[in-house]
């Protein structure tokens, strides 16, 4: 490595570091500003409408210490994961099937449109009728919300498959399964991932709605309980828990996974 290159690299790294520091600072300012605003707003308001940050913090600490906190947390998490996983598998398989067959694609296109127009709350009501107060109510709602999103993305993905690549594979007389795994899958994967990420976010949010309607455990159920008892600080504490969970999932699992899977793309855009 020549000196010039190493110098250039160092300044590039420095620039990156400076940007990162700046970003962290901005985030801190944002949080501080938010807390300040909240504190000020809570001063003249009764606690059952807007509890102060300190009060919510206290409520959260109490909440974490109750033994049911982790079981509620866990059960909600589990329902989301199960609903999402089934949705991912079903959505991916159906998306590929509909993309591979023009006939099936044309036949089922309206079904997808209809499913997409039905709101998650309606699915929740149906689920309540069909499954009653059980895990399956929430799982079903998560599934019905997440599956069409994943299916649509995968289906779109099959349309972006490069015909020239398939033709190249044909000159090697590559088998159909190999064409599927070596061309279709890598093409679809980024779109599948984008869809799955979106679907997970939506699924997680509607799971709470489903739980407030049709569950006797879980974060959504506790939220409704707290609201019924006008324990506003508890409602806030649960909300914070949820937000923290989603941020953690996003930055600990999804982002690194995506970066790893699509390193060939990231370098392309860099």
């Amino acid at each position: 490595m020549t000196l010039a290159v190493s110098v250039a690299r160092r300044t590039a790294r420095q620039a990156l570091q400076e940007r990162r520091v700046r970003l962290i600072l901005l985030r801190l300012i944002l949080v501080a500003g938010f807390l300040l605003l909240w504190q000020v707003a809570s001063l003249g308001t009764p606690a059952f409408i807007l509890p102060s940050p300190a009060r919510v913090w206290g409520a959260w600490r109490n909440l974490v210490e109750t033994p049911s906190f982790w079981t509620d947390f866990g059960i909600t998490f589990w329902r989301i994961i199960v609903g999402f996983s089934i949705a991912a598998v079903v959505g991916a398989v159906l998306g590929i099937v509909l993309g591979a067959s023009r006939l099936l694609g044309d036949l089922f296109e309206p079904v997808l449109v209809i499913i997409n127009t039905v709101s998650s709350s309606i699915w929740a009501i149906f689920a309540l009728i069909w499954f009653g107060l059980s895990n399956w109510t929430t799982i079903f709602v998560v599934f019905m919300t997440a599956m069409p999103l994943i299916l649509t993305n995968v289906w779109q993905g099959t349309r972006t498959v490069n015909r020239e690549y398939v033709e190249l594979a044909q000159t090697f007389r590559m088998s159909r399964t190999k064409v599927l795994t070596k061309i279709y899958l890598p093409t679809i994967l980024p779109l599948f991932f984008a869809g799955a990420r979106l679907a997970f976010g939506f699924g997680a949010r509607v799971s709470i709605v489903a739980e407030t309607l049709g569950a006797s455990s879980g974060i959504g159920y506790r939220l409704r309980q707290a609201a019924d008892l006008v324990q506003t600080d508890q409602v806030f504490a649960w909300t914070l828990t949820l937000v923290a969970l989603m941020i953690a999932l996003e930055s600990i699992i999804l982002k690194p996974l995506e970066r790893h899977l699509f390193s060939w793309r990231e370098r392309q855009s860099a």
Partner: protein
Amino acid sequence: MSVVRLESVGKSFMRRDGEQLEVLRNIDLEVPERSIVALVGASGCGKSTLLNIIAGLVQPDQGKVLLNDVPSREFRDWRTMAYMFQEDRLFPWRTTAQNVGLGLEAFGVPRTERRERVRKVLELVGLDKFADAFPHELSGGMRSRAALGRSLVTEPAILLMDEPFSKLDPSIRSQMHDEVLRIAALKGMSVIFVTHDVEEAVVLADKIVVLHPRPGRVRETRTIALPYPRNPLSPEVAEDVRLLRLSL
């Protein structure tokens, strides 16, 4: 035996407005075993279409296509044929080594053997240092060399190449010429390639087929009898280049 033989092949494409576009008319072509044939002709005269027909990707409307004296439809040894397309068609999600090994994966060659053969070919096309690079990290010339490697790694008996060297600088181009000639002589490979470079055609080919456009027809077939290796600067080559230029 001729590895490829076309008899009065014709092809039209349906244009989007419903009109028929006649691309090839009455093409006769014979490629004897171990020979190198160059296709030259103006842009749009159907050279790529002709290679697609030979590769079995496009069906001709008229005429016969024989491969190893067998009608193309009954031909079974497709894996002895390799086709280097006009575009490099490298998969962006695969490294150079993975792209080059694609054909071997299709053939079900075991991983260790695959790795060894890919390594050798990468060395041959001068990309051994870029085995782990993704296509977007390669230059245009490197990409076409990777595509050449992908065609050579399966050790074909028939190699079709569509403007294979057009993106290479002169020194690497003549290196690649030497490699292809060496492999062709060593393995008894037959080559059909398209080029716009008259000198390249004379340096490489036994036979040069000049196509005439709209619709594509064979205007002339020239035999180049000079011994290999052919020096592009020699007066014999220069004379053949001059004659060929006249007929274009």
